[in-house]
């Protein structure tokens, strides 16, 4: 044992080194490691089924597709932010109530207090971001599960939204929000339909369905779809190509290990709670400004829809692993099934049955993929 200071340099394929037993990872193995894989297979499967069953029912006309995309976009805006938060190991159950209170703030500021719509939107953004920060702060400082903390927020915010609106307005709806400021820029940012000339042109040529007056049934692409795609791409870029994205994965994977190498765990989580709240405000804005009215019950149960889309999209409930693209595909599955079930003419109440089964299958599949991803030695 005296000679061990004269250690020979190690050869990469040294005798007994485990490198001799290694197989290189094939492109298929790499593909299997992607969190989106399950959701992508799901999308393909579901479209195959709907093509077979409802291919000629009108589901795949431009109206049908826009309907699907619009439903998917609304869930998807929330899911993009919820995915980042879940990858960081936390939940936000207050998303739905946040949508309600954001709508109420926009509505009351514009109608009762006569603010311009853009100012109303900014007020909602600031207040809700503050509430999001509070959600995060309470979660990291108390060490309570975010499930409990945001469950409390779910109740508190919904109760406040209803009670404030009733106190100020006399009843729980706020109509005619966009009337005083119909040309506001925020309407075109959140509530408009884009590409209207193109759609009109297509209707003129008889390519898409038109009303009796010659205008197309679908006037344009809802701008929420653009938000959905944009937010998903942004979230994906952050996750895969920025330092902050690396921290999100680390914080969800092992908070104490992350802290040991200098990652500001609390700060990362609080920022993500704020982002989720901001996504809820965007959702509220797309609804309120497109429809022109707010309802205190808006957004009820949207927190679950967002979580469902994220989980179907391959993100682990326990954090540390997941994808924003997956959440987008999860939202697309949600929207496709919800609209598609109307076209195939079966009881639409079965939608929830299907969704429940889908979540169960997705989680089982995710667990399988994760085991493969981490134990292929």
């Amino acid at each position, binding site marked *: 044992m005296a000679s061990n200071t004269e250690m020979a*340099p190690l050869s990469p394929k040294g005798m007994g080194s485990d490198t001799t037993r290694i197989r290189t990872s094939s492109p298929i193995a790499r593909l299997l490691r992607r969190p989106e894989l399950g959701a992508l297979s799901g999308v393909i499967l579901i479209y195959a089924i709907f093509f077979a069953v409802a291919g000629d029912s009108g589901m795949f006309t431009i109206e049908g597709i826009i309907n699907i995309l619009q439903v998917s976009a609304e869930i998807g805006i929330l899911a993009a932010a919820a995915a980042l938060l879940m990858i960081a190991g936390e939940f936000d159950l207050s998303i739905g109530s946040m949508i309600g209170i954001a709508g109420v703030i926009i509505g009351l500021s514009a109608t009762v207090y006569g603010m311009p719509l853009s100012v109303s939107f900014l007020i909602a953004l600031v207040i809700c971001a503050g509430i999001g920060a509070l959600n995060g702060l309470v979660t990291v400082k108390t060490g309570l599960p975010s499930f409990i903390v945001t469950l409390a927020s779910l109740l508190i915010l919904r109760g406040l939204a209803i009670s404030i609106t009733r106190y100020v307005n006399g009843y729980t709806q706020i109509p005619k929000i966009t009337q005083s400021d119909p040309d506001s820029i925020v309407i075109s940012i959140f509530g408009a339909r884009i590409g209207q000339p193109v759609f009109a042109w297509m209707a003129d040529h008889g390519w898409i369905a038109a009303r009796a007056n010659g205008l197309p049934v679908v006037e344009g692409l809802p701008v929420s779809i653009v938000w959905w795609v944009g937010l998903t791409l942004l979230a994906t870029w952050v996750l895969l190509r920025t330092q902050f994205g690396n921290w999100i994965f680390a914080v969800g994977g092992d908070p104490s290990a992350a802290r040991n190498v200098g990652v500001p765990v609390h700060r990362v989580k609080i920022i993500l709670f704020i982002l989720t709240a901001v996504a809820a405000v965007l959702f509220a804005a797309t609804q309120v400004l497109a429809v022109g009215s707010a309802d205190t019950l808006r957004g009820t149960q949207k927190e679950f829809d967002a979580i469902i889309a994220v989980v179907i999209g391959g993100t682990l409930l326990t954090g540390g692993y997941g994808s924003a693209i997956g959440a987008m595909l999860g939202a697309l599955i949600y929207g496709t099934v919800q609209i598609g079930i109307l076209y195939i003419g079966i009881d639409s109440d079965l939608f929830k049955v299907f969704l429940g089964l889908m979540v169960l299958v997705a989680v089982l599949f995710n667990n399988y993929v994760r085991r493969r991803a981490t134990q292929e030695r």
Partner: protein
Amino acid sequence: MTPIIELQSVYKSFGTVVALQDLSFAVYPGEVHCLLGDNGAGKSTLIKILAGVHPPTRGTYLIDGEPVQIGSPRQALDRGIGTVYQDLAMIPLLSVTRNFFLGREPKIGWGPFARFDVDHADAIVIRELAEIGIDIRDPSQAVGTLSGGERQCLAIARAVHFGARVLILDEPTSALGVHQAAIVLKYVAQARNRGLGVVFISHNIHHAYTVADRFTLLNRGRSRGTYARSEISRDEVLHVMAGGEDLSRLEAEISRLGEQKRLHG
């Protein structure tokens, strides 16, 4: 030669519990200094002081002969003291590259568009690991797919890459099989040969005696002395590690039980 890090007459207590008393300890460049002692002997406290997790209650901490106050692990790191904890600070689901650079991601680009330079990072990881004989197939694979020895080496390589001059290794081989442990021990010896100081904590006498140049034996928060390997035999080290007299008593007791079994069986 000046030690890279040195503790002089350090005393550390947590409330009423005295963890270390009048302890002096030094690590020179190019040596593996093995810290031995039973559970509760004060090994963890000692390395936490060195790593900047706890300040000493009394006594002096010197780096390159200069007295210093280290307030956080980050400061210790900045002064070249790299600690590899038992749990490795590695995240199993995260890729090799992402783990390696976690908290110190190389960036390209400007302002809000600065991005994590993944390709550059991948290239560094492949090079660093090839240098220590780990042929990594794909730096984007999860750390969970690496063997225990590879993971340990990755953690050490990370500390070295980010400028550690002293490595504090907390039980680096305790959870490993013979083969995996050998990989780690070879790497520790390589690091030592490159002039790094290594503090090596172990329960395993075979691992410790294989790689160490000097031993410091701890017992109940006090040093029982520091010995060069030539001054102390494997059995003597074992004797102290196992708690000295306790072991002789235990052996006597067990042989008595054996006698009884023979008589009654």
